[in-house]
């Protein structure tokens, strides 16, 4: 009996002592030896992205006729897990898609800095910061992602309000909401916080109306004071909005993707903090409530003296794997994937607000025109500056705040600790 216990224990000790060296495979072999580039993403199988990928392929084929391309569309749910496993097993793609922010910054070890290859694109494309770490860009931005506050003009009209002039102060905004709810039963906001994403959108959309410009810039630069009165105001407002019944019901059990959008699309809520690209964006909403009925606003002024702005960053982008045989060739494919021609197609078919600032967007309705105009004064979104770990914690705490099981102060304390470590 004793022996049986001892030997697994011995194995554990041996393993603990030997525990080293197995974290990454040595020298992942490349696919590109035979003039072939493998691309991983989660977009190329979307109906709305096919034409974009075709354009990019054609552009690349014109420059490098002998090279075959293989686009492997992975399911998004498993994407980063697969990428991690592929990196560790030494079987990875040459070019891969990333979300801007934490997801790429956590994985720059596996990537080639692109600055020398994509220098000519630096001016034409916006959104580089989300793909940059320590001054080096690791991917070229394809889309821009941000959080405009969309509203339903039709509901404003039904309540006898002027949809051309949405309120610019918090009191005015909530008064309008009250009037609309009374007239139409539509709630003020459509909230989806099941994934813990509602708080991210909320923080970024209203941040510029709550934090002073100095506090805002400090936050982005990494100097975040979680105890400051204005940061507390954001989270207190998150709680108050819900306590005052401004949100659609059951926020913690409603997904942002795509139930909350559905609430707005079926006119059961007046406002929603949405997206600029991919989904829950102007094109999606145009389809349901009509281009003429869709309005866009920036945050009302919540703290006196603030200048509300549109929060946005680079959305998705393509990077080049460190182990690819010919980084210049792979970087050329990234350039084709961010060419004006290809990105114009992506804008037209998918409604994505693309990184290329020269793409014309005048035909998409009032909302997209307003969004593109706001890009000039826009600032990086507050939540994108946070680490994956803090974002995850914020999502959980935001749900507990809504439930009333954690106080705003206790949540801020935990967030401050997580952000510092």
């Amino acid at each position, binding site marked *: 009996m004793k022996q049986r216990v001892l030997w697994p224990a011995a*194995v*554990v000790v041996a*393993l*603990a002592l*030997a*525990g*080293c*060296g*197995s*974290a*990454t495979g040595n020298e992942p072999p490349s696919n590109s030896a035979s003039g072939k580039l493998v691309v991983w993403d989660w977009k190329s199988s979307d109906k709305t992205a096919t034409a974009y990928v075709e354009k990019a392929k054609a552009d690349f084929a014109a420059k490098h006729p002998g090279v075959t391309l293989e686009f492997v569309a992975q399911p998004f*749910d*498993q*994407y*980063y*897990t697969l990428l*991690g496993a592929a990196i*560790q097993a030494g079987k990875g793609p040459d070019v891969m898609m990333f979300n801007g922010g934490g*997801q790429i910054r*956590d*994985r720059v*070890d596996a990537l080639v800095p692109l600055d020398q290859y994509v220098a000519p694109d630096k001016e034409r494309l916006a959104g580089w910061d989300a793909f940059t770490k320590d001054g080096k860009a690791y991917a070229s931005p394809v889309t821009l992602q941000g959080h405009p506050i969309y509203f339903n003009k039709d509901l404003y009209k039904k309540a006898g309000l002027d949809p051309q002039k949405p309120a610019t102060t918090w009191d005015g905004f909530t008064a309008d909401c009250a009037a609309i709810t009374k007239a139409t039963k539509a709630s003020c906001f459509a909230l989806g916080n*099941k*994934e*813990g994403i509602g708080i991210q959108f909320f923080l970024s959309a209203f941040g510029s109306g709550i934090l002073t410009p100095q506090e805002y810039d400090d936050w982005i630069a990494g100097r975040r004071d979680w105890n400051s009165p204005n940061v507390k105001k954001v989270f207190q407002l998150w709680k108050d909005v819900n306590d005052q019944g401004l949100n659609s*019901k*059951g*926020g*913690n*059990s*409603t*997904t942002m993707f795509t*139930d909350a959008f559905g609430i707005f699309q079926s006119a059961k809520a007046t406002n929603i903090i949405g997206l600029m690209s991919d989904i829950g964006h102007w094109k999606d909403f145009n389809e349901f409530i009509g281009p003429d009925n869709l309005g866009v606003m920036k945050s009302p002024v919540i703290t006196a003296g603030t200048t509300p702005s549109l929060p946005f960053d680079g959305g998705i982008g393509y990077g080049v794997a460190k182990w690819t045989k010919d980084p210049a060739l792979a970087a050329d494919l990234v350039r084709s994937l961010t060419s004006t021609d290809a990105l114009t197609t992506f804008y037209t078919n998918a409604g994505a607000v693309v990184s290329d600032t020269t793409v014309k967007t005048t035909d998409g309705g009032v909302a997209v025109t307003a969004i593109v105009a706001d890009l000039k004064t826009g600032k990086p979104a507050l939540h994108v500056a946070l680490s*994956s*770990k803090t974002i*995850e914690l914020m*999502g*959980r*705490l935001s*749900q*507990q705040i*809504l*439930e009333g*099981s*954690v106080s705003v102060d206790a949540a801020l304390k935990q967030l401050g600790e997580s952000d510092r470590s």
Partner: protein
Amino acid sequence: MSAERLAPFVLIAPAVLVIVLFRLWPLLLGVNFSFTGDGDRNGAAVGLDNYTELFADPLFLGALRNVGWLVLLLPVAVAIPGMLATFIYLRVPGHRLYRSVYFFPAVLSPVIVGSIFNLLLSFDGPLNSVLDVVGIEPVDWLGDSKVALFTVVGVHVWATFGMALVVFLSGFATLDPALLDAARSDGAALPQVIRHVIIPGLSRTIQFVFVTTMIGMLTSMFGLIYVMTSGGPGGSTYLPEYYIWIQQGQMNRPAFASAASTVLFLVMLVVGLAQVSFLRRTGKED
């Protein structure tokens, strides 16, 4: 004679080979991996650091506590298909139909099952409307941290009982119908038949279903959790496998995830073997 003595080894060799090569060997590699670091400390030996951090994380401890809940709910998850299989075996009216359709949910992916139940259980969804008619306050089935885990377990049981049913039904093949007839002609009521004939007769099948249901609950509820609650609200429906997944993918901490996996393996091993020996003992008493 030597060929005779060799026979068992020949019969088990292919199975042992496959399991050792593609299951136990990777397991050892994974355990080894859990003693290394992530990110800046990639590949470096870090001793028990990952384990220390793991047991200091309230989220992981919460996930383990939820495992405890699952173990407590296990008898229910086994009893339901067991009862249903018994009724089908006893030829309740319509048994042929039930035998066919009870398996249907098992063929749908958890993603679609989860999506459907998201709609049915949403705050303003059909279930709450029905409760409203009866005069019961609406329940936020997936948004209330005291209820959500049980909701998800309920859906999991609903989605998988068809498989356990199949196993139970094949187990009935080993039951001696003469015993059943004897009990019946003695005038035994159904509960007595179940207690004195069916449970002892099927003890191995029951034990088997217990173990596999536990494994199903502890390792394949990921899809439902992912779609129905994303571990929320407030982390209340986190399970170790979801935790592992998040650490591995979202947080990019594979070595730390390996440590969590190793703990999950040990927990399952202990719970599972305890269960087997417990069931064996009670089986013998009968």
